[in-house]
C-alpha cells in the first residue's frame, strides 16, 4: 500500500467534502494569482527602472508647474565631463486626446536629440532614430495605444491637447514601443510643439520635467542632491527623484490598486489556510479510530504524520490548480485592457505568478495539516480505540 494510494482513497472517501474544499480553496486562489501577478509586475517594473538609472527633476510645487528649458543646460553644466550623467531630456505634457473622445492619452513632448539616449530601453534602432529626427511630426507610441486605436508605423493621426492652449496637432508614427511597462505612452517632439505654440502666439520654451540618464546609482544619488541644491531658493525650485519614487506617486492613481492587491493577497492566504485547516480537522476527527487501528497494526507514528500532512498538501494543491489554472487561462484569453494603472495596460498572469501561487498553496496546505498531523502523531492508540466516535 503506497502513500499515494492511501491519499487518493482518503480523498475519494468523501468526494463531497473534497469537492467543496477544492472549490472553497480554488476561488480565493484565483483571486490570489491575479493579485500576485500585479505585485510581481510592479516589482519587475521597479527593477527595470532601477537599471535604467533615470532621474526625474520637476518643479517642487507640483508636476504641473513648468520649469524653463534653460534648466537643462544648467543640469548638464553640473557635470561637464559627463562622468555622472549621460544626457538630459526635457519633457512637456501635451495631454492629447483624439478629437471627440473624452480621455487624454499620456502624451509627452520630448527633446528630440536626447530622447533616444535617455530612453535607450525603448529600443530605437538607427533607422528609427533617423526617422524621428527627420520628421518634425514624428511620434513614438506604445503597443497598448497602437492596439487600442489601431495605429501602425507610418500612420498619420491628429491629437488635440487638453491643456491650454488646446492645440490640435498632426503626427506620424515612426516607432511602436514593445516594452510592457511603456504600453500606454505617446512621445512627440518638443521642438515641434514649441514651434506650434509660438505660431499660436503662446509662450514656448518650458518643460514639466527633466529626465537625466545617469551612469551609476551613486552618480544618480549625488546628482539628485546637487540638482535640487542648485535650484534651491530660486524662483523655479526643483524636486528630483528616481524613476521608482516618481512612479510610486502615480500608482496612487485610481485608489492605490497595488495596495488593495497586497491586502487581498493576505486575506486570501488567511481564508484558504482556514478552509484547508477546517477540512483537515473535520476529516481527522472522523478518522480517529481508523488511525488508531493503523497504529495498532504497526504503522509508525511518523508514517501517520506524513500521511495526514501529505493529504492536506494534496488537497491544497488540487484546489490551487483548480483556481489558478482557469484564472491564468482566462486572463490570457480575455485580458482586461481597460485597466490603466500607471504604465500598465493589463494584468498579465506571468508564469512566475502561477508558480508562486502554487508553491504558496502547498505551503498553506502543509501549515493547515500540521495540527491534525501532530494530533495523529500523539494519538494514544488504546484511548482512541475505546472512543465511539
Amino acid at each position: 500500500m503506497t502513500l499515494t494510494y492511501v491519499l487518493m482513497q482518503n480523498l475519494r472517501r468523501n468526494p463531497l467534502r473534497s469537492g467543496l474544499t477544492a472549490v472553497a480553496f480554488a476561488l480565493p486562489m484565483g483571486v490570489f494569482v491575479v493579485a500576485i501577478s500585479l505585485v510581481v509586475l510592479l516589482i519587475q517594473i521597479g527593477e527595470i527602472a532601477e537599471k535604467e538609472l533615470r532621474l526625474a527633476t520637476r518643479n517642487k510645487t507640483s508636476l504641473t508647474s513648468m520649469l524653463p528649458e534653460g534648466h537643462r543646460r544648467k543640469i548638464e553644466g553640473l557635470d561637464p565631463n559627463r562622468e555622472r550623467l549621460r544626457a538630459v531630456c526635457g519633457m512637456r505634457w501635451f495631454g492629447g486626446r483624439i478629437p471627440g473622445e473624452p480621455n487624454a492619452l499620456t502624451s509627452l513632448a520630448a527633446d528630440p536629440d536626447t530622447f533616444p539616449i535617455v530612453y535607450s530601453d525603448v529600443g530605437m534602432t538607427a533607422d528609427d532614430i533617423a526617422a524621428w529626427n527627420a520628421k518634425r511630426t514624428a511620434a513614438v507610441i506604445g503597443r497598448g495605444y497602437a492596439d487600442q486605436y489601431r495605429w501602425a508605423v507610418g500612420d498619420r493621426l491628429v491629437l488635440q491637447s487638453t491643456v491650454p492652449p488646446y492645440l490640435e496637432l498632426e503626427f506620424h508614427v515612426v516607432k511602436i514601443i514593445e516594452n510592457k511597462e511603456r504600453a500606454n505612452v505617446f512621445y512627440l517632439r518638443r521642438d515641434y510643439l514649441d514651434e506650434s505654440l509660438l505660431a499660436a502666439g503662446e509662450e514656448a520654451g518650458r518643460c514639466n520635467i527633466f529626465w537625466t540618464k545617469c551612469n551609476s546609482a551613486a552618480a544618480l544619488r549625488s546628482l539628485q542632491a546637487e540638482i535640487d541644491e542648485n535650484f534651491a531658493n530660486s524662483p523655479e525650485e526643483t524636486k528630483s527623484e528616481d524613476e521608482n519614487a516618481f512612479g510610486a506617486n502615480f500608482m496612487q492613481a485610481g485608489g492605490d490598486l497595488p495596495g488593495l492587491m497586497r491586502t487581498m493577497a493576505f486575506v486570501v492566504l488567511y481564508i484558504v489556510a482556514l478552509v484547508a485547516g477546517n477540512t483537515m480537522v473535520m476529516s481527522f476527527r472522523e478518522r480517529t479510530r481508523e488511525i488508531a487501528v493503523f497504529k495498532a497494526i504497526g504503522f509508525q507514528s511518523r508514517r501517520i504524520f506524513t500521511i495526514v500532512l501529505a493529504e492536506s498538501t494534496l488537497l491544497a494543491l488540487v484546489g490551487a490548480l483548480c483556481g489558478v489554472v482557469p484564472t491564468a487561462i482566462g486572463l490570457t484569453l480575455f485580458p482586461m485592457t481597460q485597466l490603466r494603472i500607471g504604465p500598465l495596460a493589463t494584468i498579465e498572469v506571468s508564469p512566475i505568478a502561477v508558480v508562486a501561487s502554487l508553491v504558496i498553496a502547498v505551503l498553506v496546505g502543509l501549515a493547515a495539516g500540521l495540527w491534525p498531523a501532530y494530533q495523529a502523531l500523539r494519538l494514544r492508540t488504546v484511548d482512541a480505540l475505546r472512543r465511539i466516535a
Partner: protein
Amino acid sequence: MALPLSYHWRHLFVRKTTTLLTTLVIAAVVAVFTWMVGFDGALRDSLATAHDDQKVLVMRRGATAETNSAIPIEDFNKLNQLNGLARDAANEPLLSPEMMAQTSRPRIRDGGKTWGNVAVRGVTEIAFKVHTNVKLTGAMFKPGAREVIVGQNAAKQFAGLNVGNRLMLGYGSDRDYVVVGHFSADGGPAESEIWGYLPSLMNAWKRTTYSSTALRVNPSVGADAVIEQIRGPAIQLEAQTEGAYWREQTRTILLYLRVTRVLILAMAVAAVFSIANTMFAMVAGRTREIAMLRTIGYGRRQILLGFVVESLLLSLLGGLMGCLACAAWLGGVGNTKDMFGASTFTTLAFEIKLSPLSLAAALACVVAVGILGALFPARRAAAIPVVAALREE
C-alpha cells in the same frame, strides 16, 4: 413547533474548532465586504454633496477638468449677461471666478514617502455664496494678505496643513503663505482643497486668466436653460452642473470598485462553500441524533429549518467578528483614502465610515452566505430515513 434556539446555539460549541475556523473564514469575507461597502458609500457621499443641481461649473470649451481650463477675463465678463443667475441680497449676481492650481504635499499615512497633488483654488468672497456647503471652522483669509484656508480632509491627509503652518505656493517671489483656518464642505470634494484669495494666488502662479467659474442658478429658471445659454454662440463656453462634473471625474475610481467587487464576490462564494462543508460534516455526524428528533415528532421541515438556523447563527457570529475587525482596521490603520483624478491631476480625499448602510449590507451578506451554505446540507438532514439512521452507528 420549531426546534429550540438554545439547541442550535449549544450545538455550535460541541465542535469548537470547526465552529471557530468556519466563523473566521466568514469574518474575513464580511470584513472585506463591509470595508468595500464603506468605501463605495464614502465615495458616493462625497460626490452626493457635490451634487448641487443649482450650481453650474463653467470651463473653457475642450477642457476636461477645471485644472486644465483657462477662461480669459473678457469671456468671464460675458457671463454677467446671463439670464437666470441667482442674485444675493445686494442684487449682485452669484458668479464666482476661480483659479485652479496644484501643490505637492507629503501624505501623512505613509509618513511622507509619497506625495500627492492638493488642489489650490483662488476665490473671492462671493465664492462662499455660490458654494453654500462650505463652512468655515476657523478664521477666514484676509483679502490681500498671503493667507489660505484648508479643507478638513486635505488637512487630515496631507502634512503641514494645520493652522499656523506656512507653505510655499506658486512660483516666483512672494510665495510664502500661512494657513489661518480650516473649512468643511459636507465631506464633498471641496474639503480636499486649499482656498486662497484669487488675485493673490493668480499673482503667485503668474496667471492672467481664470480657470473656471462657479455660478448659482435662479431656481425658477433652472440649470439647463442657463447651461444652454453658456454653450450658445454668445458666450461659447462649456458648462455642467456640479453633479455631472464630478461623476465624470470619478470614472476611473468606478473601475477600481468594479475590480474590488469581483474579488469579494469570489471570496464570498468561497465562504458559502466553506459553510456548506462544515454543515455537511455536522449533518453526517449527527445522523442518529436527527433520527431521534424525528422519532420524537419533529417533522422534516422543522429539521431543515433547524439546520438553516444553525448555519445562520454560525455566519452571524462570523459576521459580528468581521464587522468588529473592519471597524478596528478603519480605526487603527486609518480610514482616510484619497483618489487621484487623472484629469483633475489632484487628489480627492474622503473618509470611510461604518455607516448604518454598510452594517446593513454586512448583515445581508451574512444572511445570504448562511442560508446559501446551509441549503443542501439541511435538505440532506431532512431526508434522513429515520429507522435506518437509528440503526446506524
